[in-house]
């Protein structure tokens, strides 16, 4: 499966990019996060993050589809 991963804040600094296409054998954001952790050294763990798929927060076990835009959301600090 191929998806687009978006990175923000500390994760963007760690990945060195705001976005990348990732292809691999993953079915959920949880699988995808494990896959990404083999490519990057992130300062945050899954327990610190929320995940969104196509601009909607979803559970880490939600199914992923071909071409989805996935973002792992660090603790937010707006306002």
């Amino acid at each position, binding site marked *: 499966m191929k998806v687009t991963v978006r990175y*923000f804040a500390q994760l963007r600094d760690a990945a060195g990019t705001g976005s990348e296409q990732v292809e691999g054998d993953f079915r959920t954001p949880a699988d995808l996060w494990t896959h990404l952790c083999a490519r990057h050294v992130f300062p945050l763990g899954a327990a610190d993050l929320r995940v969104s798929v196509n601009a909607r927060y979803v559970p880490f076990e939600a199914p992923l589809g071909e071409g989805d835009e996935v973002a792992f959301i660090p603790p937010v600090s707006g306002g």
Partner: protein
Amino acid sequence: MFVLQASPLPGGADLLPPGDLACGGVVVFEGRVRDHNEGRAVTALEYEAYEALAQAEGERILAEAAQRFGPVRVAAAHRQGLLQLGEAAVVVVAASAHRQEAFAACRWVIDAIKERLPVWKREHYVDGTRAWVACGCHHHGPEAP
């Protein structure tokens, strides 16, 4: 109406024009960039947003507020990009027939924004360094901004 923009934010009256004559109580919350945080002098703030999710989630927050607080009109705006001290980072307006619902809805919306809106704040310090701000807002209410 939820607005995410890089230019200075509208004030409460522009964000929610007086159009509904049933609304007698209007509450505006404005969060401004302050000059210190946790003992360090701050010179400016930078906000990064995930625009697609922030727009969608901002609209969901306002829709939920309208459901939760009944006949109340709510609007909100959040800034992104580089902000100078004193500039508004967030504006929330709530209008209702009476003040109680307006205060309650305004507070609920700013709390939800701080809890859910995918926006990240990076502080710039006097010594030229910058750092992402760890979120300490989940259970502390509207410590602004």
